């Protein structure tokens, strides 16, 4: 009977070792998969940041290097024309007045030509009285031509990745009790006098490991 009891106890140790090993391996494998998904999200965040940045650079280049200089050219000619017209009105000598009016007309015509040829005239809503040009609003319009690029939020994607990585780490941590359950199983095999305490402790640690893993899984 003692032999049968010893055999049963040895079987229990073996079962504990097997359960602990399978549990730790299972939780570890799941944690690795979750961590891998987290890494993917982090890489997506870097891609999103690059894509967003490329959009900002291209749109600012277009607005400040293509549109704004042409708009300024239009405004410059218009303002010079207006000032020449003002001088023409003040001029007492008719010949000087005629020359000034001619210059003013040339500048105003130049302004209109540039506006028409450059396309500035096609979007008159940005040309403001003064005259001036609503460059920031033009930039906003250019950015909003591709809303998907503007709404790219690398920070949000990174946060999603961080959540998954944190879940993965906590899952790995929840496998630690199972590893200690394996220690209990091994000690129960080697130390017969402690066996009766170690086996229940080992199974309790396995249960704790499983419960912790489930809590982590449900918390995220």
């Amino acid at each position, binding site marked *: 009977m003692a032999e049968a009891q010893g055999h049963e106890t040895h079987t229990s140790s073996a079962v504990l070792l097997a359960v602990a090993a399978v549990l*730790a391996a299972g939780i570890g494998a799941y944690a690795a998969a979750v961590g891998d998904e987290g*890494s993917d999200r982090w890489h997506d965040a870097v891609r999103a940041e690059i894509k967003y940045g490329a959009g900002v650079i291209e749109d*600012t280049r277009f607005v400040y290097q293509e549109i704004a200089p042409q708009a300024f050219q239009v405004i*410059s000619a218009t303002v010079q024309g207006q000032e020449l017209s003002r001088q023409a009105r003040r001029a007492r000598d008719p010949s000087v007045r005629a020359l000034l009016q001619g210059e003013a007309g040339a500048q105003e015509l130049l302004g209109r030509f540039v506006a028409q040829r450059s396309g500035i005239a096609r979007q008159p809503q940005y040309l403001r009285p003064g005259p001036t040009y609503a460059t920031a609003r033009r930039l906003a319009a250019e950015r909003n031509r591709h809303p998907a690029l503007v709404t790219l939020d690398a920070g949000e994607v990174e946060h999603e990745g961080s959540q998954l990585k944190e879940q993965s780490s906590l899952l790995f941590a929840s496998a630690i009790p199972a590893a200690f359950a394996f220690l209990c199983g091994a000690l129960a095999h080697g130390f017969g006098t402690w066996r009766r305490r170690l086996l229940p402790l080992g199974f309790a640690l396995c249960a704790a490991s499983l419960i912790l893993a489930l809590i982590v899984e449900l918390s995220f």
Partner: protein
Amino acid sequence: MSPHTHIELEHAMPEIDSGTRFRKWVTVLVGIAAATAGVLAFAEAEANRQKEHGLVESARDAQQIFVRLGANTQLLQFSGNATREALAVTLQGAARVRSSKPGQPRAFAIAVAQADMQASARLLAVVKQMGAVPAHTSGLDPRTADAVRSSVASAKALLAKQNAAAEAADRWATRQEYTIFALGLVAIAVALAGLAGLMGVGRPGRIAAATGSIALVFAIVWSAVTFLT
């Protein structure tokens, strides 16, 4: 002695004490190795998480620095060019007056110079208006506005953050690599323990168990030093 009394083998047969002690040694070695492997697996995962996070933060910060500098440079370049053009208008008028020859309509040159001077002042104001990007421009997403409005000083602060993230990534990468090495030592310890169990009590078995124990102790100390420093 009652047949129901449970007795330990080593108490009943003192001559096999050494074999029992060897068995205990091997089981302790295997058990501690398993527990250590569990803790090290978590440590490795955590080190990997921190390292990757540092790398991602570092890459994003670097990208943001370049985007801020690039976006702001476009604005500065436009403002600089437009300011030079506005100033040139004044100079053009002044040059016209100074170069007017006798017989030419000097009154016309003076009137044009005055017109140019007024136009230049107005154009400088226009440059200022066109170069302004209010923090809350209607329709403009705040991140683009921040990038265009950024300065070298703000990029420096971001650069410090980027450097800190890169250094953190480097520190955690070292810890991860050392942890992987420690896990390798634990695997060696377990293999030697298994071999010792197969060899049984005796000189070869004891050598295998001793080497495995040393490997395991080294792995634990190595990991502790890695994470505590």
